[in-house]
């Protein structure tokens, strides 16, 4: 088996998720090489060959150009599996490569068991085993699903990649996430509101519980998207990553993007009406209850204590 691992680079730096690609390659077994549009000044740690295209020249986001650069390397290397992270870079580029190669693409792989790829479905409530019918397979890996026991320390041997080509998409620059507001990463206790709170008025009951516990309140994405709570309080991949002593998830289903932001919490309590909600996977205690009843009651009992 021969794999090509597609590493990522943003705003002048290599992203650390290349280790997950290496971990997957080790699980599958076989030879591998890496590809990145990046810079020699920030190389991934990798004990192997890196095909490097210059981000200065080709742009950090220029999908058509990146596609052709990658296809050039694929043409030379003939990998059977092309591996991306399931990230804003990976899910954008992978289907373009899959279509160009007439390859099957399996997205958000969480496991590889005896040659079959395993992916989640329905908000991780179910799992699906997928088999690809084509000679070449393209996969994207769920963030955090594959990890290395030992991080590589070696530097890769670099081979430069160049092509002629321009794309139709113009990259105008980055916009940083909103700053200011509370710093949730410093809170020892966080109580978060999810869509299960039902209406904006109920943010208060979650905030009150946080206060009764001496902590801060946070929120899942839909609550922030609805503008019930400001973005700086959002927990998850596109918000804050927190690791408090206690995390209480109120009416949060436990989507992977939310879990990524809080699963390192020391103790997790989930309050949810759905006993099967995936938040149960990371919760030390799952309280099956209507938060609208339970949360105010908890606050009251804590306050009279």
């Amino acid at each position: 088996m021969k794999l090509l691992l597609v590493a990522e680079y943003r705003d002048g730096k290599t992203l650390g998720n290349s280790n997950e690609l290496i971990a997957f390659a080790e699980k599958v077994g076989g030879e591998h090489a890496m590809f990145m549009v990046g810079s020699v000044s920030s190389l991934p740690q990798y004990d192997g060959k890196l095909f490097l295209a210059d981000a200065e020249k080709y742009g950090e986001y220029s999908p058509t150009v990146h596609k052709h650069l990658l296809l050039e390397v694929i043409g030379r290397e003939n990998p059977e599996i092309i591996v991306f992270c399931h990230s804003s870079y990976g899910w954008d580029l992978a289907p373009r490569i899959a279509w160009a190669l007439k390859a099957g693409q399996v997205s958000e792989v969480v496991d590889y068991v005896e040659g079959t790829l395993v992916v989640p479905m329905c908000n991780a409530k179910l799992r699906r085993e997928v088999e690809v019918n084509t000679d070449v397979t393209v996969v994207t890996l769920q963030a955090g699903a594959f990890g290395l026991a030992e991080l590589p320390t070696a530097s890769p041997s670099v081979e430069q990649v160049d092509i002629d080509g321009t794309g139709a998409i113009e990259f105008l620059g980055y916009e940083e996430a909103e700053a200011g507001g509370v710093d949730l990463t410093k809170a020892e206790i966080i109580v978060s509101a999810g869509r299960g709170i039902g209406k904006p008025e109920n943010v208060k009951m979650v905030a009150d519980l946080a206060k009764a516990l001496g902590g801060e309140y946070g929120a899942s994405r839909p609550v922030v998207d609805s503008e019930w709570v400001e973005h700086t309080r959002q927990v998850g991949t596109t918000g804050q990553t927190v690791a408090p002593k206690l995390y209480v998830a109120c009416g949060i289903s436990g989507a992977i993007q939310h879990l990524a932001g809080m699963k390192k919490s020391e103790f997790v309590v989930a309050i949810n009406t759905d006993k099967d909600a995936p938040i149960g996977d990371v919760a030390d205690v799952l309280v099956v209850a209507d938060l609208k009843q339970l949360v105010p009651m908890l606050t009251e009992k804590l306050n009279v204590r």
Partner: protein
Amino acid sequence: MNVLVCIKQVPDMESKFRVDAAGTWYDTTELAWRMNEYDEYAVEQAVRLKEQVKDADITVLSIGSDKVKETMKKALAMGCDRGAHIADDNVSGKEPCEIAGVIAEYAKEKNFDVIFTGMQSQDRGSGQVGVLVAEMLTLPAVTTIVDFVYSDGRIEVKRELEGGIKAKVAFTSPAVVTCQLGLNTPRYPTLPNIMKAKKKELLSIPIKDLLKVDARQHTDKVYFPEKKGGGLIIEGEPAELADKLIQILKEKTGVLA
């Protein structure tokens, strides 16, 4: 201006799921169905684009059984002009490449200026269909957009990246964009618009007329993941649960000291 929005009907994720008889998908009976969340943002953005440019026609497309027409009616009530229902009783058996192939085949000579899709479907979650449609039609595609501005054929969007950083990119129509949560605030259809939607065109086309791409993958098995936790599950009366929980927090954590 000609606009296409692709929507999928998906089960409510709070449903009690069961594996189907073949063991290769979830059982589709006894579920509540709704519009894929990401696609609601796609529909809303298409309608806003029409409100902006005035002279536009929005086609909403969905592949699935007759049942998906219910969801399509919501899109029509939100402001889409016509519906293209691609009739397929076995849509769950179609992989993203086939779905995209059908959409591309439908769209290929219709000169759509903008094609909106969701960034992913909530049940399958491949995040492939939008980009594949663009590749098949050789159009530019930008994924995961949280901001969309159209001006005279030029489109400027923000792509959401990890950590809440955004990438600003520009391109010209025709193009495909895949919509992320929070792109806008999808409207609720009003009663008069629901009534009006009943009179809008909603044509069904058999999938075999449009299915020209072969499947490149198949599902072997669907199953419930093993429960990881070992976490405690407590049920009962709220007052009892509150006491129990406080007790647990006292015993297991230092936070109530």
